[in-house]
């Protein structure tokens, strides 16, 4: 392996080596935590400005371009603004809960990064039940959102929080179900094990990522849609629908607490994107065998950036859903489809024993049809449930 690949691992080892022997596990743990917080903190700052610039360009605007070269120092200005703003707590708010909610949102999100493998030998915590840990930790954000909405003593906050709870619980189902095929076929709940299962190559040198299989592609799409809803991003940003309920559960937050919510939301997005990369896009593996010379963490970063760009792209494109559309979409489309995807994964597993020249494309097409046709029918059924298009009697 090249030196660049293991450079962070090496630095960590060397730095921990300076500490006295009994303290070394603690020091190396702290170093890993500091590394993750520094990298993803910087990532958060960069993403906020990149998102605004990309959104701007997609709407034929410049985006922020005043602070520093190309507006790159915008996060600094935003940070100073957020920190110097007055921190207002409503008079009738439940002060303790109001204070705790942003912390309860942010801390578990940081914990979720512990199990993600960012590169070869680069996961802070190699848990046997990494995926389980990730989802268990991730569901704490629902608690935080409801704490924020309830403690604010504001009807907009409460409505926003109730929307958020309905949405997050509904979309947790397809989110988790779409990962199950990966876990079953990899035979492991450990994220490192899942990455290792995608590490081999076909004869053409193409990696065996899950996304190159029909169930993997469908699973990735389902996972990304559910992840968008889980992280309250447009087009599923009903909990913060500005045009309807001001800022949802964030209405009564300002200053640093608001910034913490913001941070928590972006970090939640990063964590779930990192999970998508790990589960479906081969983690830190290169797409082709002859590209394995590049550092593994660079591959992880590249895939991660592409997915983040996809999220921003979707945000620039799609309008917000209505609440009934949102819930129908989850329960009548995504959840059944992710269950069907399980069966498709099973079919893919059994047909893996076929041995003939035409087997591979036939197998691929068969499994693709098994998921594409139900998707088509479910989509039609979903559209049948919507009210007919509104007729305008006078404004034609």
């Amino acid at each position, binding site marked *: 392996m090249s030196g660049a690949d293991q450079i962070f691992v090496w630095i960590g080892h060397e730095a921990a080596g300076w500490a006295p022997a009994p303290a070394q596990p603690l020091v190396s743990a702290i170093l890993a935590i500091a590394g993750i917080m520094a990298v993803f903190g910087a990532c958060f700052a960069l993403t906020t400005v990149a998102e605004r610039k*990309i959104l701007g*360009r*997609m709407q*034929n605007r410049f985006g922020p371009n005043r602070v520093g070269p190309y507006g790159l120092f915008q996060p600094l200005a935003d940070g100073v603004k957020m920190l110097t703003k007055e921190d207002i707590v409503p008079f009738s708010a439940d002060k303790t809960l109001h204070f705790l909610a942003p912390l309860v949102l942010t801390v578990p999100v940081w914990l979720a990064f512990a199990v993600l493998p960012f590169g070869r030998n680069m996961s802070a915590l190699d848990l046997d039940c990494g995926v389980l840990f990730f989802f268990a930790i991730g569901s704490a954000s629902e608690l935080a959102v409801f704490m924020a909405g309830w403690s604010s003593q504001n009807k907009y906050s409460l409505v926003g929080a109730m929307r958020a709870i309905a949405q997050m619980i509904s979309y947790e189902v397809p989110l988790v179900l779409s990962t199950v095929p990966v876990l079953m076929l990899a035979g492991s709940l450990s994220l490192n094990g899942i990455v290792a299962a995608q590490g081999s190559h076909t004869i053409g040198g193409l990696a065996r990522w899950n996304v190159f299989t029909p169930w993997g592609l469908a699973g990735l799409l389902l996972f990304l849609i559910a992840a968008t809803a889980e992280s309250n991003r447009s087009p599923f940003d009903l909990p913060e629908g500005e045009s309807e309920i001001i800022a949802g559960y964030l209405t009564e937050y300002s200053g640093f607490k608001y910034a913490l919510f913001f941070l928590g939301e972006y970090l939640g997005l990063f964590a779930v994107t990192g999970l998508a990369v790990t589960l479906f896009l081969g983690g830190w593996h290169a797409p082709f065998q002859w590209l394995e010379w590049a550092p593994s963490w660079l591959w992880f970063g590249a895939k991660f950036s592409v997915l983040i760009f996809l999220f921003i*792209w979707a945000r*620039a*494109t*799609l309008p917000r859903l209505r609440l009934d559309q949102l819930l129908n979409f989850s329960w009548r489309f995504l959840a059944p489809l992710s269950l069907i995807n399980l069966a498709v994964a099973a079919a893919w597993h059994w047909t893996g024993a076929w041995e003939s020249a035409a087997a591979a494309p036939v197998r691929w097409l068969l499994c693709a049809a098994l998921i594409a046709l139900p998707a*088509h029918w479910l989509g039609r059924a979903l559209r049948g449930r919507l009210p007919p298009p509104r007729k305008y009697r006078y404004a034609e």
Partner: protein
Amino acid sequence: MNGAGIIKGLVETARNFAGSYHDRERLTTVQYPEETLPPVENARTLPFLVYDGGDAMAGLRCTACMICEKECPPQCIYIIKDQARKPDYMGKMQLQPKVFDIDMSVCMSCGICVEVCPFDAIKMDQVFELSTDDRFAGLLFDNEKLARPNEYFRQLHKTEASEVDARREEEKRKAAAKAAAKPPLPGGVK
């Protein structure tokens, strides 16, 4: 097909994304302090006083008739008449203002002063960069500060200015003809 509309939308935004880097015409933003839009003739922001000739205070068209002060809805105009008189463009002796103040922070840019002025002395300007750190004295404009030459008015509102100039020329000519035709009355009666 499911999602066809979503893909169509994604293609549209992607086209915007690439296109906005490719051709500048897509970006409609005018980056204000560095670049500004060309002035629009009909734009009207705040009033100013018109003067003729080189000397601002001597050529002021205002005759301190007080109509604008009375008509001004937010009452931002304040006038004190001067005792001395001066001849106007037709040679008639007229009053002139000693103090003519407009509080720009109170003015609501309605333009009623312009409509009621019988002497075409007050017109609307196109300035909008009036920000100051003193909102009382800094925005209280006196006649020195309000006075602008007629050329400036002509530059701003070409159509209106040429109409005003033509009318004033006509009146001047008529007055001169009248004075020439009518011999002075005996006994010095005016």
